[in-house]
């Protein structure tokens, strides 16, 4: 396994980790084969993500992908985030070795779920 410097930096210094009080949206992604779990909390203003935070259980790349995911999410419109693809996360990490692609997958899954959750809550208001 060889990881990019970007990935390593996210792993060493995770951005926006920890839970968030009274989030506008929460979503999880899971990768059962290795029990990886990513959870994102979103603060939304005017239909865009103002702030994202994460908690995660998993291997190093998954933790790094979560950190990168919060940066990708920030500023993104909910509608766009609800469609975000794995490749976007992988790119934000400076690439992933093939056996660790699930890291991007689980993060994109969780971000999409969080965005949809926020959209659903907004619809209720």
């Amino acid at each position, binding site marked *: 396994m060889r990881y990019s410097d970007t990935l390593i930096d996210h792993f060493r210094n995770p951005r926006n980790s920890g839970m968030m009080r009274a989030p506008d949206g929460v979503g999880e992604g899971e990768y059962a084969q290795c*029990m990886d779990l990513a959870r994102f909390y979103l603060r939304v203003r005017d239909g865009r993500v103002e702030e994202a935070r994460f908690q995660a259980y998993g291997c190093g790349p998954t933790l790094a992908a979560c950190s990168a995911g919060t940066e990708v999410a920030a500023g993104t419109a909910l509608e766009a985030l609800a469609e975000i693809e794995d490749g976007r996360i992988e790119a934000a990490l400076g690439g992933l070795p093939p056996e660790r692609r699930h890291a991007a997958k689980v993060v994109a899954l969780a971000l999409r779920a969080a965005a949809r959750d926020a959209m659903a809550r907004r619809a209720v208001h």
Partner: protein
Amino acid sequence: MNRRVYLDHNASTPVHPEVLQAMLPYFSERFGNPSSVHGFGREARDGMETAREQIADFLKVSKDEIVFTSGGTESDNLGIKGLAAARGSGHIITSQIEHHAVLRTVQTLEEQGFTATYLPVDGDGMVNPDDVKKALRADTILVSLMGANSEVGTLQPIREIGRITREAAVPLHVDGVQTVGKVPIDMGAFGIDLLSFSGHKIYGPKGVAGLYIRKGTKMASIQHGGEHERRRRAGTENVAGIVGLGKAVEIRGRDMAVEGARLTALRDRLWEGVRAGVAEVRLNGHPTERLPGTCNVCFHDIESESIVLGLDLKGIGVSAGSACTSGNVEPSYVLEAKGLPLDWAMGSVRCSLGRGTTAEDIEYVIESVVPLVAKLKTLSPVAGAAPAVS
């Protein structure tokens, strides 16, 4: 990252300088084919036979009972398949926590019509000799058990098991890849008929290993070709590697006892240090009947691979689960067999110490692992309370 600490000696070890020194002439000077009758061949053969003697001396067995192979995996394959092929059919007893080299070999034999029993282990990773006794059948042709587990280090009660197999006149194969050269083995008292051992776990080179075959044990060969190793293993011998293996075993005979005591103390200090600094942690494997250098711990609610990466970034090499197979992250079948819950088993990290490990190394590892675990815990959505997902 300047400091580097290698705590993965159960995966592989650096070649001992004396071993490399012994090997060097056999690459470009005494390079003959040991099967050749001329002087160049004799020089190579002599080196190889010296190695055979060094190993026979260490194990206190006869030279003729040692066959050289290409690795622990081949030794296990040869021991088990060679005996099975000589018998043709029958029942094999092994355990759930064997190395894949044994497990997958026995599974392959099952596909070919042999039958097998996989014995469970207790919470310390130990096979109960009574279970061996109960599993014996009239058609049992082999009991294959490891001397020490690579992952958690638990030593099996081979002496007691050997007494049972001997009484039942069933051959006993011991996968000693993690055992030979680390803890004493009394071939006579243990009743071992086949013993696998390997170079690269004991400061010898990779790609060379051996199988002890007790005189009179009927074996078929599994690799076909020339009449090397008294027709028990075809193929030009890895002379330099064999010379290195012999030297490595000889050195273990000299250093094993003193080093074992030193490693046991370091290993225990490591565990104390980690336990003092981390809240939810437990030690895997038997508290005392364990390899001197092996310290396998579980951290609750964090994933071992993230710890391995975190320590790697500090220059520390440890392994997550069973590292010898490939970089995959399945929960360890060894820990599962021990009955460890998954939320613990997923956070297991094996530290295996060796002759180069110092007391400072251990302090550095403790200083590194404690804050790393704390940080990973703060990221974890499963540790502690978290808001329910709507």
